[in-house]
C-alpha cells in the first residue's frame, strides 16, 4: 500500500507553479523524509496530501487510493503543520478536550498518559508552554487520533537540540508501536540518516530523487582520484563533481561491486553527502525504475 501517491500533481498560486508534474508513491511502513531547498514545493505537496489545498492539475490519493481530503482519508491521517499550531489561550487540557470533540476517533487515555509522561502542566495555557512542550502537545493530540499516517511539516525547525531529540523519539516510538507511517519534511540533513528510511528530494517543484535510503546509499559511491582523469568518467553516471588542481571527487551512481578505475579510491557516501550532491545538481535525478541519473549532465564545480 502507498500512503501517498500522486500523478502529474500540480499546484499554481496565481501565475507561479509551486509544484508541477509531481509523480511519486510513498510506500507504507516507512519514515519518509521530504527534502528540498526553500520554495521547492514541500509544504504545498504536504498540504495537498492532507487535503488542506486542492490541486490545480493531477491526482493525489492517500492510504491506498483514498482521495486526499475525503472523510475516509482524513480519519486515517494526522497532520502537524510547520509552526505546531495550537490555540495559545487554551490550556493544555482544553486543547486535548477540543481535539477529542472535533474528531471521530480519539484516545483520551493515551493523550492523558502521554501528557503525564512528558510532565506537561495541564492547566497552563498552551502559549505559555516551552517550545518543546508546545511541539509535544501538538504531537500528542495528533497521535491520540491513532492515525495510520502522520504528516509533519518541518517539525523540529524551531526546537533546541534536546527538544528535537525528544520530539523525534516520540514520533519514532509511536511508529514502532503500531506500525504508523510517517512523512516529514525537514531541513536538518544530518539527522535524516538516523530517522528516515525513505527519501524524497523535491527541487523546483519536481521530484528529483525518490527511494529507499539503503538502496540509495548502496547505489552511490564517492570516487576520489587524479583531476586530470576526471573527464574520462564523463560517460559514467556522475551526479556531482568537485575538482581541485590535482584531485577530483566524483559522486557517481555505482554499487560496491562495480570496479574502481585504477588510481581511484571509492568510498561509501552518507545520506547527507548524497542529498547535498543532488541539491547542488538540480538536473540530476535518481528515481525508481530505469537509472535516470545516467542521462544527467552534471555541471562541474571548480574549486
Amino acid at each position, binding site marked *: 500500500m502507498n500512503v501517498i501517491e500522486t500523478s502529474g500533481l500540480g499546484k499554481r498560486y496565481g501565475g507561479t507553479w509551486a509544484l508541477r508534474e509531481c509523480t511519486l508513491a510513498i510506500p507504507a*511502513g*516507512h*519514515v519518509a523524509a521530504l527534502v528540498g531547498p526553500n520554495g521547492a514545493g514541500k509544504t504545498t505537496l504536504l498540504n495537498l496530501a492532507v487535503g488542506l489545498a486542492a490541486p490545480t492539475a493531477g491526482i493525489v490519493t492517500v492510504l491506498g487510493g483514498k482521495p486526499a481530503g475525503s472523510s475516509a482519508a482524513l480519519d486515517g491521517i494526522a497532520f502537524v503543520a510547520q509552526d505546531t499550531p495550537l490555540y495559545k489561550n487554551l490550556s493544555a487540557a482544553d486543547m486535548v478536550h477540543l481535539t477529542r470533540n472535533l474528531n471521530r476517533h480519539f484516545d483520551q487515555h493515551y493523550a492523558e498518559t502521554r501528557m503525564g509522561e512528558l510532565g506537561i502542566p495541564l492547566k497552563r495555557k498552551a502559549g505559555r508552554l516551552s517550545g518543546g512542550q508546545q511541539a509535544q502537545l501538538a504531537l500528542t493530540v495528533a497521535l491520540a487520533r491513532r492515525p495510520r499516517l502522520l504528516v509533519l511539516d518541518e517539525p523540529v525547525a524551531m526546537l533546541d537540540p534536546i527538544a528535537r*531529540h*525528544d520530539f*523525534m*523519539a*516520540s514520533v*519514532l*516510538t509511536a*511508529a*514502532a*508501536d*503500531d*506500525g504508523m507511517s510517517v512523512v516529514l519534511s525537514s531541513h536538518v540533513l*544530518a539527522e535524516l*540518516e*538516523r*530517522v*528516515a*528510511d525513505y527519501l524524497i528530494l523535491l527541487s523546483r517543484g519536481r521530484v528529483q530523487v525518490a527511494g529507499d535510503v539503503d538502496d540509495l*546509499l*548502496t547505489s552511490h559511491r564517492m570516487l576520489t582520484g587524479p583531476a586530470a582523469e576526471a573527464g574520462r568518467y564523463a560517460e559514467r553516471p556522475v551526479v556531482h563533481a568537485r575538482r581541485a588542481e590535482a584531485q577530483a571527487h566524483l559522486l557517481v551512481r555505482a554499487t*560496491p*561491486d562495480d570496479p*574502481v*578505475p*585504477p*588510481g*581511484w*579510491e*571509492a*568510498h*561509501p557516501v*552518507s545520506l547527507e553527502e548524497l542529498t547535498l550532491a543532488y541539491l547542488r545538481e538540480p538536473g540530476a535525478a535518481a528515481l525508481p525504475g530505469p537509472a535516470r541519473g545516467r542521462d544527467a549532465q552534471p555541471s562541474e564545480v571548480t574549486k
Partner: protein
Amino acid sequence: MTIDKEDSASAEGGRRPASPIEFRLDPGSGVPTYLQLVHQVEHALRLGYLKPGDQLPKVRDVVSSLAINPNTVLKAYRDLEIKGLAVGRPGQGTFIQATLRQVALPELTALSRSLSGWLTAADGAGLDEDGIVALFTSALRDFYERRSGPRTRGGAASGETEGVA
C-alpha cells in the same frame, strides 16, 4: 514496522533496563547506524558484557532513547541473527545465542608480544603512527580478502576504502 505487542507492553510496565548493555551512536563515524549497533553487540560479547541468554535492548527502548528509525534496529538484530549471534523469540525480544570465539589469555599475551616486536621494527624503519595503522589495515584487508574472496556489502559499507594501487 510493528513490534511485538508484548514487547512494547512490558517495556511500558517495568521501566528497568532488561538488557545488560545500552547502545550509543557516533554520528561522526560515517558508519551506518545499524552497523554501529551490530559492532557494539560484538564488542560487548568480546569483552564479556554480554553472554548467551542475555537479552538485547528492546527495539522500542532503543528507538525512544536514540531517536532512530525502528527499521534500523530491526535490521541490526536481523544481521546478528544471520551471523548466529542472536535469536529472536516472538513476543519476548532478541537474545544472545552464541559467543564470539575468544582466545585464551596466554595465547593472547604471546600474540601481543610478537605484535610489539613488529611495531618496534616498523618504528625503526621510520613509519609514524598513521603509517603503521595504514599498513596494518591494508595488510589485514588483504589477508581476509585472500581468505574469503571479495568483501560483502556490510564490510564495504562500514567506512572502508577500496583503493586500487
